[in-house]
């Protein structure tokens, strides 16, 4: 499989959120606004990219039976690095995402790609896969966040469009499910053609 195909795969055909339905905890949890979705997506992209790269580099040196704990340690380290770096250099974003950053460790997209892709492919295509998947995840989260923010608080990227209360249900947990379901339906419709 060519690298270009690997990259676009993560974006559309195997989009982690819309098609694979992986990593739904942060997807539903943080997307109350577009900026939160974007921040979470980029943090996850970094972890995916780095974890995929390192896992594919060390895969031969890790005995099969202990590969899961080894991968988890690698992933958890990168998540902690993101957590610390964000607290240091993007404090406001860290305040609104803080609770969810440590949860990237157990985001099934990350371990899923390490196990299903990086442990079987070379370094370059693993990096491309991590980047594609990560950006696909970012795209999905930003889109979902934008839809929920627009309907729920009449704003987009924190810019108020109409001075009125929105449909609050979209900012709450049930709205996350509703908005995601409609987006998935739309994606299915579009990709069928």
């Amino acid at each position: 499989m060519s690298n270009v195909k690997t990259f676009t795969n993560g974006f559309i055909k195997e989009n982690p959120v819309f098609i694979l339905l992986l990593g739904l905890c942060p997807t539903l949890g943080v997307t109350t606004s577009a900026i939160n979705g974007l921040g979470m997506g980029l943090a996850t992209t970094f972890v995916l990219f780095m974890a995929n790269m390192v896992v594919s580099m060390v895969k031969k040196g890790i005995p099969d039976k202990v590969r899961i704990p080894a991968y988890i340690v690698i992933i958890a380290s990168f998540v902690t690095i993101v957590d610390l770096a964000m607290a240091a250099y993007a404090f406001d974003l860290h305040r609104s995402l803080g609770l969810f950053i440590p949860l990237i460790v157990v985001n099934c997209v990350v371990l899923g790609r390490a196990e299903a892709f990086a442990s079987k492919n070379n370094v370059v295509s693993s990096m491309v896969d991590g980047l594609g998947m990560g950006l696909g995840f970012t795209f999905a989260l930003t889109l979902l966040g934008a839809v929920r923010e627009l309907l729920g608080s009449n704003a987009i990227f924190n810019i108020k469009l109409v001075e009125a209360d929105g449909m609050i249900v979209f900012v709450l947990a049930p709205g996350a499910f509703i908005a995601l379901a409609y987006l998935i339906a739309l994606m299915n419709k579009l990709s069928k053609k």
Partner: protein
Amino acid sequence: MAKKESTFVNMVLTLFLVCGIAAGALGYIYTITKEPIETAKKDFLYKQINVVVPGADQGEIGEPIEKEGLKFYVVKDNSGQVIGTAVESFTESGFSGRFDIIVGFDQDGKILDSNVLTHKETPGLGDKMSKDVAPWNEQFKEKDPASYKLIVKKDGGDVDAITAATISSRGYCDALQKAYDGYMKFKNEGGIK
């Protein structure tokens, strides 16, 4: 290079190595981000103190004094005159558990202003208690809790609750009351110097 066999020695050694490298890397990142994180936290807190005790940025904010879970920051102007005290307070009875607020009091115990520091309340509803979201907490300005009942109107007090977020409003009042009680005790014990 052939894949490593899953022998006992191999597994132990590999995991040991992976964890060792991860620990080293995290330790290093921690030391370089420690200072920026502390500065960012302090900047944020000082910005909030300036909100609740206007003019604090031109004066001097004292070292925090901790008492019974509350933190007191005595604020002086350039000539050494006390202009107010910022109190970090909290409540356990928010809609999603604990949240922290900061309140400024003048010398007579009147509320100068207040704001939320960290919270997990519902976006679109309970988060209106934060100044960044809605002007709700302006109603406490210039109020003296000795005569002004810090209880929502529904329960027989003087406070207009946030529509559809009575529990968050009650929590905010609880935190304010705690701050006031603590502040009066602090003042009477001669804590303001």
